[in-house]
C-alpha cells in the first residue's frame, strides 16, 4: 500500500517540478540555447578555424561535447537550487513535510526534476550544435549514462545549496564563484594535455574534468583521462552527495526549527 503512496507522491513532485521549469521556459530553456549558440559562433566558427584541430578533430567538434555538458551541469544545478530554495522561501515545502512522504521520495522527486531539465536543455543545445557541426556518437551507452550521472550529481549539489541557502544571494554565490570557474577549467575548451604538467595535475582535482572528458569520450572516442576512473569518481561523488542530502533532510537542517 505504501509503495503506491510513494510512487504517486514521487510522480506528483516530478510533474510539479517539470511543470515549473516548462512554465517559465523563457528563463529555463531558452537562455542556455542562446548562450551556447554564441559559444559555437565565437569559439567554433570565428576562432576555431584559426586554432585548427585538437586531438584529431576540428576545434568546433572538439568543444561541442564540453559545451553540451556545461549546459546540462548548469541547468540541473540551477533547477534544483532555485526550486528547493523557492519552496523554502515561500514555505510550500511544508506541503511535503506534513505529508506522509519519506525524505527519500522528496529528494528523488527534486533530483528527477533537475535531471529532466538538464536533459531537456542538453537536447536543445545538441540541436543547436547540429547547426554548426556534425556530431558523432561513438559510445551511445556511455553518453546516456554520463549525462544521467552528471545531471544527478549536480542536482544533488544544487539541493545541498538550497538546503543551506537563507537568502537569494546564497543561491547565486556557488554557481558564480565555484561552478563556473570549475566548468571553464574543466577541459570544456581545451585538452589538458596542452597545459604544463603542474596545471595538468591541478586540473585532475577538478571533478568536472572527468565528466566533460567522459562525455567527450562517448561522443568522439577521445579523452584526457581514463574512462573507468571518470566513472568511479562520478559514482563516488553521487553516492556521497546523495547520502549527505538524505542526512540533512532527515535532520531537518534548513527546513525545520
Amino acid at each position: 500500500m505504501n509503495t503506491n503512496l510513494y510512487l504517486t507522491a514521487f510522480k506528483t513532485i516530478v510533474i510539479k517540478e517539470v511543470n515549473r521549469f516548462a512554465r517559465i521556459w523563457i528563463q529555463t530553456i531558452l537562455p542556455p540555447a542562446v548562450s551556447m549558440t554564441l559559444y559555437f559562433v565565437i569559439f567554433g566558427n570565428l576562432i576555431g578555424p584559426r586554432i585548427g584541430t585538437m586531438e584529431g578533430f576540428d576545434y568546433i567538434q572538439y568543444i561541442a561535447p564540453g559545451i553540451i555538458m556545461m549546459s546540462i551541469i548548469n541547468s540541473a544545478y540551477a533547477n534544483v537550487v532555485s526550486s528547493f530554495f523557492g519552496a523554502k522561501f515561500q514555505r510550500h515545502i511544508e506541503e511535503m513535510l506534513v505529508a506522509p512522504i519519506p525524505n527519500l521520495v522528496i529528494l528523488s522527486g527534486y533530483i528527477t526534476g533537475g535531471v529532466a531539465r538538464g536533459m531537456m536543455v542538453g537536447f536543445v543545445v545538441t540541436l543547436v550544435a547540429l547547426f554548426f557541426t556534425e556530431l558523432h556518437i561513438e559510445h551511445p551507452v556511455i553518453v546516456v549514462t554520463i549525462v544521467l550521472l552528471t545531471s544527478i550529481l549536480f542536482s544533488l549539489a544544487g539541493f545541498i545549496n538550497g538546503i543551506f541557502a537563507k537568502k537569494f544571494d546564497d543561491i547565486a554565490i556557488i554557481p558564480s564563484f565555484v561552478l563556473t570557474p570549475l566548468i571553464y577549467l574543466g577541459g570544456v575548451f581545451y585538452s589538458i594535455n596542452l597545459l604544463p604538467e603542474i596545471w595538468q595535475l591541478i586540473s585532475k582535482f577538478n571533478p568536472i574534468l572527468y565528466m566533460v572528458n567522459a562525455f567527450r569520450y562517448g561522443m568522439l572516442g577521445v579523452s584526457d583521462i581514463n574512462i573507468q576512473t571518470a566513472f568511479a569518481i562520478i559514482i563516488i561523488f553521487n553516492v556521497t552527495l546523495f547520502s549527505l542530502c538524505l542526512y540533512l533532510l532527515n535532520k531537518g537542517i534548513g527546513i525545520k526549527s
Partner: protein
Amino acid sequence: MKALKISNLKKTYRGGLQALKGIDLEVDEGDFFALLGPNGAGKSTTIGIITSLVNKTEGMINVFDLDIDSHSVEAKSLIGVAPQEVNFSQFENPLEILLNQAGYYGINRKTAYGRAEKYLRKLGLWGKRNDPSRTLSGGFKRRLMIARALVHEPKLLILDEPTAGVDVELRRSMWDFLIDINKQGTTIVLTTHYLEEAENLCKNVAIIDKGNIIENTSVRSLLSKLDIETFIFDLKVPQTTPPKISNYVCHMLDQSTLQIDISKQQGLNNLFKQFSAQNIEILSMRNKYNRLEELFISLLEDNSTDK
C-alpha cells in the same frame, strides 16, 4: 479513542528559548477542541511538532493511537493542517495546489480531481480555481488552505488561526462549514485569538501560557467558573441622573447607556424589577465582553501572578 494524545511535550529552540515545558493534552475523537493562548504561548510550536514541521526536544505524540515517530506515515495520513501563515506556491493556481497536495498523500489524479472540485466548491473557490494563488484575497487564501488541508479527508484537522484577518461574514460562513465537517466526524483542533469563535464552535478547550497548559476542560465548565458578567443596557429614554439600582455595581456610560456588573447569584430578575419600578425602559442588552474572553484574561493574569 483519543484523536490526539500529547505527553510531556517539551521544546527548547536553539538559543535557549523554552517554548514548551512539558505539556500533556488529550483530544477525544469527534471533538471540536480549542487551543488558546496569547502570542508566543506555544500554540504554533505544538501544532508544528504534531505536523512534523518542528523537531521536538522531548515527549510523545499519538494520533489515533499511532506514535508520530514510529508510525509516521500512517499518523501523517490522518492529519490535515491549515497553518497560520500562507504557505502555498504563489505561482500555482488553487486547483494545482489541491491536486499536488492530494498526490503527496498518495491519491491518484482522478480521485484527487473529484476531491479538489468538492472542497473548492464548498469553500467558494471553484470559480477561482485557475487564478494564480497570489492574486487571491486574504480570505480566499485562508479558505484555500482549509480546502488543501481537507483534500485527503483527514480524521484530525488542525487549524491554526483559520479566520485571522477574515471579515465577519466570511468568518461566519467558515464557522458553518467547520461545524458541518465536525458533525461528519472530523476531529478539529483550533487555535484562535477570537474567543467568541472558540466559545461558539468548541466543546473543549485548553489554555496554554508560557509553554504550560494552565487550563484544560470543557467550554461549558470553564464558563461556569465565570462569577461576574458585565452587561450593557441601552435605555429607551435618556437619563440625566444615574438610576438608583441597589445591590448592583452600576456605571452610566452616557445618558442612554448603562453598564452593570451582575454576579451569578444575583441574576437578572431583580434588576429588571428595579428598572420597572423606576419606569426605565430597556431597548436592548448585551455582554460587554465575550464571556470566554473575561475568563481567558483572568486565567492569564493568575498565571502571571503565580510565577
